[in-house]
C-alpha cells in the first residue's frame, strides 16, 4: 500500500496486527522516528500464524526491531462458529449435567419450530459429582473429591484436552468448586482446566456455565495458536511483548489470553471500534456511530462521549452465550456480498443470504449469478470495474455479469429498468443498515442525528452519504485508512481488566465496608494482571459499576459509582439518576437491591499522535478524470481523485469518487468532503 511516510529508524516499533478473513493488516508505529506505515498481506485461513509471520517479515529485517506486537484475532470466534474447538469435559453438581444443553429454554426462531442445538460439550462428557451449595452460600453437601478425581480421569480416558468445573451456586460460595478444581489440576496433564467462577463469579447458572465451557474449549485452540505465534516470533529475534486485544476493547498479555481465551471472542472487531473512537475524539466528534461493512455483514457500534459502549452479554450463535463485557456490536446480514431477491409476495429483499467472498458477487464471474450489493455498486458506476479494491489482491470485475444478474432477478420481476433495480437494491440495503444504526442508538436512548457516522472497512465509504440521509446525521467521517482501522486500533488500545462479583443484597442492608473491601480485592487482582504484561503505563484508571434494581424486577440498571460516593445514600442517589435516565421516571417507595459489582481497571498506554497519519502534500492535485455514476434516476459525471493525494483543507464537492487502495468513497450530489488536519475526510451537506 502506498501508505504514508517512509520508515524511520527501526528502534522499538509498535506493531498492530489484525488478521481478518481476507487480509492481514499491520500498522507499524515508530514512535522514536515519528512515523507510521501500513502493511497488507493476504490472510491464510486456518493457519493464521503463517499470514501473520508473512506480514511481520515485511515490517523490518528482523523481528528484534519490534518492541510490542498487539494482535486482534478472530481465531477464537471462528473456532466457535465452525465448532472447531477442543474436546472438552464438564464436572458438575449432581442433578445438573444438562444445564448447558437446556439453555434458558429458548428456540432459534420465533416462528417455524425448526432448528436444533448441538452443545459444545456432548452429554457423555458431562459428569456429575456429589456436592451442593445453597443460594445463601451455606454448604449443603461437601464436595466428594474422590468422585471429582474419578470424573477427571474418566474424561481424560475419553480423550478430553480441556475440562471445566462448574458447580451450582458457586458464585455465592466457591469453596466446593475451588477444592474440586485443585484436585483436577493436580492430575490434569496440561493447564486447560477452567473453574467456572474464576471466569465469571456471577449468578445465572446457564450463562456462567456457557461462558466457562467456551473458555475451556477455546484454551487449547487459542493457547496453541498464541504459543506458536510467540515462538515463531522469538525465532525471528522478537523479544518484546505480545499483547492481545480483548472483546472489551482493552488489551491483555499473551498469558492472560491463554488463561481466559473467551475474552477474545470479539477481539478483531473491538480493535476497529477503539480506533474509530480515538479518531473521532481527535477530530472533535466525541459521539459517533461506526459502521464496518464487509462481505456478508454490517457491524455497527456506538461511541458516546468518546467511549465505546459495552454490553454485558453476547450470543456468538444460538445458545452459545458469552457473558463478559464486550464492545457492543450490532451485526446484520447486509454486506457487499448480500444477495438481492424478490420474494413470493413481490417484496424486494437484500440478504441475509450472501455470496460471501467465494464465489462472491456475480461480477466476479466465479459461479454466482444472483445479484449482490456490490453488483449494484459496480453497475451504477460507484465502483470502477477496472480498479477493484485491495490493490489487485482481489478478483477483477465484469460489469456485464452484474447487469445480467440484476436484470434477471430484480428488474424483471419488479418491472423496473436495470438501473432503477440496482438503485432499489442499494436503497433497501441502506435502509437495512440504517435500521442497525437505530438499534444501537435509539433503543439505548441516543438520538442518531446527534452522532457523526464513521464508516470503516472496505465497503462502508460507498454508502456514507446514504447513511447520513437515512438517519439524518449532520456529519460523516471517513478515516484516512478505513481498511486498516482494526490494526490501528490494536496500537491505540489501553490495557484493561474486568472483574465481577454477585452481592445480591438489599441496599439498606448493604455493608459498605465489605463492598469497599471487595472493590479493593478486585483492584489488586486486576492490577496484578496489568503488571504481569510488562508494559509501561501513563496512568491507571478504574471504573466501578453496580447492577441494581427495584425489588421484584429482574432486569438491572447499570449504575456507575465513584469511590467517594460509596455510602447507602450516595448509591441510592446514583441509582435514582440512572433509572430516570433509562426510563424517564423513578418509582418511589419500592426497596432497591444490588445484584452485582462490576469493576474495570485500565492501564493507559502512551497515546500516539494521529497527526502522524496526516497528509504531507501541500497542493491540490489534478482530478484523475470523471466517471459516470447513476444516482437518483439519472447518470451524472462524478469527478475522480486519488484520496491520499489530497492535502489538508482540500474540499471536494459531490458528485465525486475518491479512490484509495483499500476503499472507494462516493460523495453524492448535495454533499461535500473536506480533509481535516489529521487526514480524515469530513462529509457535510452543501449549504443550499
Amino acid at each position, binding site marked *: 500500500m502506498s501508505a504514508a511516510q517512509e520508515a524511520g529508524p527501526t528502534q522499538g516499533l509498535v506493531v498492530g496486527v489484525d488478521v481478518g478473513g481476507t487480509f492481514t493488516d499491520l500498522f507499524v508505529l515508530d514512535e522514536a522516528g515519528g512515523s507510521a506505515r501500513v502493511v497488507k498481506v493476504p490472510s491464510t485461513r486456518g493457519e493464521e500464524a503463517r499470514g501473520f509471520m508473512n506480514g511481520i517479515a515485511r515490517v523490518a529485517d528482523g523481528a528484534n526491531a519490534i518492541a510490542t506486537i498487539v494482535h486482534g484475532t478472530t481465531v477464537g470466534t471462528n473456532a466457535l462458529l465452525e465448532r472447531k474447538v477442543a474436546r472438552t469435559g464438564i464436572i458438575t453438581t449432581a*442433578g*445438573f*449435567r*444438562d*444445564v448447558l*444443553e*437446556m439453555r*434458558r*429454554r*429458548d*428456540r*432459534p426462531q*420465533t*416462528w*417455524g*419450530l*425448526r*432448528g*436444533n*442445538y448441538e452443545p459444545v460439550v*456432548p*452429554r*457423555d462428557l458431562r459428569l456429575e459429582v456429589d456436592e*451442593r451449595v*445453597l*443460594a445463601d452460600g451455606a454448604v449443603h453437601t461437601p464436595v466428594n473429591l474422590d468422585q471429582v478425581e474419578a470424573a477427571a480421569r474418566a474424561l481424560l480416558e475419553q480423550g478430553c484436552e480441556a475440562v471445566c468445573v462448574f458447580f*451450582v*451456586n458457586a*458464585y*455465592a460460595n466457591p469453596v466446593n468448586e475451588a477444592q474440586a478444581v485443585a484436585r483436577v489440576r493436580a492430575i490434569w496433564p496440561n493447564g486447560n482446566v477452567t473453574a467456572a467462577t474464576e471466569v465469571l463469579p456471577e*449468578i*445465572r*447458572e446457564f*450463562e456462567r456455565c456457557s461462558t466457562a465451557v467456551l473458555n475451556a474449549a477455546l484454551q487449547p485452540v487459542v493457547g496453541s495458536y498464541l504459543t506458536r505465534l510467540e515462538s515463531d516470533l522469538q525465532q525471528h529475534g522478537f523479544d518484546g511483548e505480545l499483547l492481545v486485544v480483548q472483546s472489551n476493547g482493552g488489551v491483555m498479555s499473551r498469558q492472560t489470553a491463554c488463561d481466559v481465551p473467551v475474552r477474545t471472542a470479539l477481539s478483531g472487531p473491538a480493535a476497529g471500534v477503539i480506533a474509530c473512537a480515538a479518531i473521532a475524539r481527535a477530530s472533535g466528534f466525541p459521539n459517533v456511530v461506526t459502521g464496518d461493512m464487509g462481505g456478508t455483514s454490517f457491524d455497527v457500534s456506538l461511541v458516546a462521549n468518546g467511549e465505546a459502549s459495552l454490553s454485558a452479554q453476547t450470543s456468538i450463535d444460538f445458545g452459545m452465550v458469552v457473558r463478559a463485557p464486550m464492545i457492543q456490536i450490532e451485526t446484520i446480514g447486509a454486506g457487499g456480498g448480500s444477495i438481492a431477491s424478490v420474494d*413470493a*409476495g*413481490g*417484496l*424486494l*429483499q437484500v440478504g441475509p443470504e450472501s455470496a460471501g467472498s467465494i464465489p462472491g458477487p456475480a461480477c466476479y464471474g466465479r459461479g454466482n449469478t444472483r445479484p449482490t450489493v456490490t453488483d449494484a455498486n459496480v453497475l451504477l458506476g460507484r465502483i470502477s470495474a477496472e480498479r477493484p479494491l485491495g490493490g489487485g489482491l482481489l478478483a477483477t470485475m465484469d460489469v456485464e455479469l452484474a447487469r445480467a444478474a440484476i436484470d434477471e432477478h430484480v428488474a424483471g420481476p*419488479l418491472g423496473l429498468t436495470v438501473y432503477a433495480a440496482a*438503485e*432499489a437494491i442499494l*436503497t*433497501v440495503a441502506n*435502509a*437495512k443498515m440504517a*435500521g442497525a444504526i437505530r*438499534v444501537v442508538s435509539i*433503543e439505548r436512548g441516543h438520538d442518531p442525528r446527534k452522532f457523526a457516522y464513521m464508516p470503516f472497512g472496505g465497503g462502508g465509504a460507498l454508502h456514507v452519504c446514504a447513511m447520513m440521509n437515512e438517519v439524518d446525521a449532520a456529519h460523516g467521517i471517513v478515516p484516512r485508512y478505513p481498511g486498516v482501522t482494526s490494526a490501528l486500533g490494536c496500537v491505540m488500545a489501553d490495557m484493561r481488566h474486568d472483574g465481577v462479583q454477585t452481592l445480591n443484597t438489599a441496599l439498606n442492608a448493604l455493608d459498605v465496608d465489605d463492598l469497599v473491601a471487595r472493590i479493593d480485592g478486585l483492584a489488586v487482582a486486576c492490577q496484578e494482571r496489568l503488571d504481569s504484561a510488562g508494559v509501561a503505563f501513563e496512568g491507571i484508571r478504574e471504573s466501578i459499576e453496580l447492577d441494581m434494581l*427495584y425489588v*421484584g*424486577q*429482574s*432486569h438491572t440498571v447499570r449504575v456507575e459509582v465513584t469511590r467517594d460516593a460509596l455510602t447507602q445514600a450516595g448509591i441510592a442517589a446514583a441509582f435514582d439518576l440512572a433509572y430516570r435516565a*433509562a*426510563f424517564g*421516571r423513578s*418509582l418511589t417507595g*419500592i426497596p432497591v437491591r444490588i445484584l452485582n459489582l462490576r469493576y474495570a481497571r485500565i492501564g493507559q498506554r502512551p497515546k500516539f499522535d494521529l497527526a502522524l497519519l496526516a497528509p504531507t502534500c501541500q497542493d491540490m492535485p489534478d482530478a484523475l478524470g470523471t466517471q459516470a455514476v447513476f444516482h437518483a434516476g439519472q447518470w451524472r459525471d462524478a469527478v475522480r481523485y486519488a484520496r491520499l493525494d489530497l492535502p489538508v483543507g482540500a474540499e471536494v464537492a459531490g458528485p465525486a469518487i475518491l479512490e484509495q487502495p483499500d476503499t472507494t468513497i462516493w460523495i453524492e450530489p448535495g454533499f461535500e468532503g473536506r480533509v481535516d488536519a489529521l487526514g480524515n475526510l469530513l462529509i457535510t451537506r452543501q449549504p443550499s
Partner: protein
Amino acid sequence: MLDPVTLAVLKGRLEQIADEMDATLYRSAFNPIIAEAHDACHGMYDAATGATLIQGKSGLPVFVGAMAFAVKAAAKAAAQRGGMVDGDVWLFNDPYEGGTHANDFKLVRPVFRQGKLFCFLASAAHWHDVGGAVPGNYNPAATECWQEAVQIPPVRIVRAGTLDLDVLAILKANTRLPDSLWGDLNGQLAALELGAGRLAGLLDEYGDATVLESLDTLRERARRLMRDHIAALPDGQYAFEDMLDNDGVRDTPLRIALTLTIAGDRLTLDFNGTSPACAGPVNISRATAIAACYVALKHLFPDVPANAGVLDAVDVVLPDGLVISADRPRPVGGYTETILRMIDVIFCAMAQAAPERAMAQAYGTINALSIAGYRSDAARKGQRWVMFSFFGGGHGGHSDGDGLSHGNAPISTATIPPLEILEAAYPVRFTQWALRPDSAGNGTHRGGLGAIYEIELLEDSADAFIFGERGRSAPKGIAGGGEAALNVFRYQQNGQWQTPPMRSKMLGIQLQRGDRVRLETPGGGGYGDPAARAPAAREHDRKMGYVSEKREERDNTKEQLA
C-alpha cells in the same frame, strides 16, 4: 401504487417501532413473566376494524391474533362512553372480548392525526397477580371467572394525558402484589408513549397517506403469500382429533376435533365435533381460538408477514358453546393448554396433506407451577412469597431434523428463569434440573427431549399449585413418527410420593419442610418411520443417554406387535 423500495423501507421502520415498544416493557417490567418470559406484545392496529397491521417480533405469538379483538373491544366501549380523545389510554382484562385470560392486561391508545383517528397502538402483558382465589391466578378448580381474577372492563387509565389515580387505586387494591402491578403498568404506559412518539416521527417523514398505503399493501401481500401457500397444498379434507386430560373440576377428557379442508387457495378449519364448554378453566373464548389458529399457521408458513392478511384466506368454523368458544362466566384461566391442543391438531391435520410442511406435536403443556407461603425466619417473619414459573419440554421432529430439546411452548417465546435466581429469591432447592431420557417420540427424526425438575421446600410449610396437561394423552408424531412420553407431576407428603387424581392439575398441595415436588415433562412427537432412522443417529442417542436400551427394547416389541 407504492414503489417497492419505499414499501420495503417502511415495513422495516414500522416493525422496528413495535420491537422498540417490546424492548421498553421488557427492560422496565417488574414481574419475571414479562421481563424474562416476554409474555407481552405490542403492535399497531387498524383504525376502523382493529385488525393487526404491524406486530413486534419478540412479543408473545398468541397475542398476535388476539389483539385485534382487544382493540375492537376497547373501541366499542369507548364509543358508548364519549369516545376516545388524544392522549387517552384504555385498559381492561376481559378475556371474552379481548382474548386469552384475565392476567393479560390490554392497553389501547388511539393515535390521532389532524384531529382524525389514524390507528391504535396497543400493549398486552401478563400481570403477576390480579386477585382471585389463587396467587398467580392459575386456579385449576375455578368454575366462574370471578374465582379466577378481578374482572376489569375497558376503562380510561389515562385521560387525555393524565393518569387516573382512581382507577390505579382500584387496580392496586385487587392484587396481592401492588408494587409489581404498578411497575408493570408503568412499563406498558412507557412503551405506548415511546410508540406514539416514534410513529408520529415516521408519519411526519413519509406522510400519512404513504404509510397507510404501505400498510394496506403489506396486508395484501400477506394475503397473497398465504393463498399461494394454500394453493400449493393438495386439495382434500384432513381430519384429526386430540384430547385434553380433564378440566380440573371433572375428570373427563375433552375432545378437540378438526376437519381441515383445502380447496384451491382457501383453507377451512372446522372445529365441529369439539366438546362443549366445560365447568373448569380450560375453556377459551372465540377470540382466543382464532388467535390459536393464527399461531399454528404462522409456524407452518413462517415467511408470511405477521399481520391480519394471514387469516384473510382462511375460514374458521367455530360453533357456539364449545370449550373453544365459551362465554362469560365460564372460567378461562388455563387457556394455554387448550390453544396448545388446537395447534397440535392443526399440525397433525396439515401433516396428512403435506408432511414436510408440518412439525410433529411439541410437549403441549406449560405446567404452570406455583409454590407459595410465608417466611418463618426472624428477619422476614410473616412475609408472603410466591414462586411461579412455566416449564419447558421437547419440540416435535420435522422433515429437516430432530426436534429441539427443552424448548419453549409454540405460543410463547418465554425463557425460563435461572434456577440460581429462583433459589436466591425463594426458599426452595432444586434437586434436579435435567433432560428427561426416553421422553421423545421415536421417528426418522425423533422429537426433542422433555425435562425433569425436582424442587425441595426449605421453609416450614407452603402450598403448591399445578396446572398442566398431557397426563393422559401424549404428544403425537406425524408421518409415522411415534408418541412422546406423558407429563408426570408428583409431590411428596411425609416422604411418600403422590400423584394428583387429575394428573397434572391440583390446588393447595400442602408441603412441609423437606417435601419435594417433581415434574417430568413430555418431549416432542417423532417425524417419519422410526425404522428409517439413521444408524449413526440411533447410536448417538444411545451414547448420549437420550434413549435408553430399555426404551429401544420396548419400541422394538411394539414394532413387532404392529
